[in-house]
C-alpha cells in the first residue's frame, strides 16, 4: 500500500514548477500533477499551530493564581491592582487561598466576584492578575485563561 512512497521518482524540478504562476496550460497541469505526487511522498501537508501556553481545556481550569505571589504575600492589593503596604487606603489583603482559573475567567469576562469576596476586592484582584507579565508567578495560568483551547 505504501510501496509507491519509496520510489525515487520525484523530480528535483518540482519546486521551480510550483513557483511558475503564469506558466502555459501544459506546464500547469504538469506542476499540479507533481504537486499531488509531492504530497504523496511524505511531505507534511498539514502544519498545526497551537497557542503556546494553552493546554487542554481541563488543565486550564485547574490552574490557580496566588494573589499576590508568594514572594510578596504580605502586600495588599490596591483597587487598580498594584501592590501596596498593608492598611493603605483603597487596598485589600489578598485572598486566603489562590484564585481558581474558572473564577478568574468569569471575573474577567463577566465581571463576577470571587467566592467569599466583595466586588471591590474582586476587582482589585482581577486588576492585579491583568498586570501579570511574562516571568511573574501566575502568568502562565493567566495566559492559558486568555487563549482559546
Amino acid at each position, binding site marked *: 500500500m505504501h510501496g509507491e512512497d519509496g520510489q525515487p521518482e520525484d523530480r528535483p524540478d518540482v519546486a521551480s514548477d510550483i513557483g511558475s504562476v503564469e506558466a502555459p496550460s501544459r506546464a500547469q497541469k504538469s506542476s499540479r500533477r507533481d504537486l499531488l505526487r509531492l504530497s504523496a511522498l511524505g511531505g507534511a501537508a*498539514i502544519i*498545526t499551530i497551537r497557542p503556546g501556553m494553552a493546554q487542554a481545556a481541563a488543565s486550564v481550569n485547574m490552574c490557580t493564581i496566588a494573589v499576590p505571589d508568594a514572594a510578596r504575600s504580605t502586600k495588599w492589593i490596591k483597587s487598580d491592582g498594584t501592590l501596596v503596604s498593608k492598611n493603605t487606603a483603597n487596598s485589600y489583603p489578598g485572598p486566603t487561598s489562590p484564585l481558581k482559573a474558572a473564577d478568574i475567567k468569569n471575573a474577567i469576562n463577566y465581571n463576577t466576584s470571587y467566592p467569599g469576596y466583595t466586588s471591590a476586592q474582586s476587582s482589585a484582584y482581577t486588576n492585579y492578575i491583568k498586570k501579570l507579565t511574562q516571568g511573574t508567578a501566575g502568568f502562565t495560568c493567566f495566559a492559558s485563561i486568555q*487563549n482559546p*483551547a
Partner: protein
Amino acid sequence: MTLLYHKPSGVTHFLASPLPEMLALLREVPCGADILAERLCHRLAIPCNDEAVTVVTERLAELAAIGLVHSA
C-alpha cells in the same frame, strides 16, 4: 498554502495543496475517498490513477485526524 482556524479546537492549521481543494469539494458535496479522488483530478484537470486515490485516501485520513472532516 491555506491558513485555516478551527474554531472548536482553537487551533490553526496550514494546509498544503491538495487539502484545500479537497475540503472545498467536500463542502460542495460530501463523498468518500474514491469519488473525491476522481472529482479532485477532474477539478485539477489531471488523469485519475491509483496514485491519486492513494494520496486522497491518506490526506483524507489526516484531515479526519485533526477533526476537519468526519465520516458520515
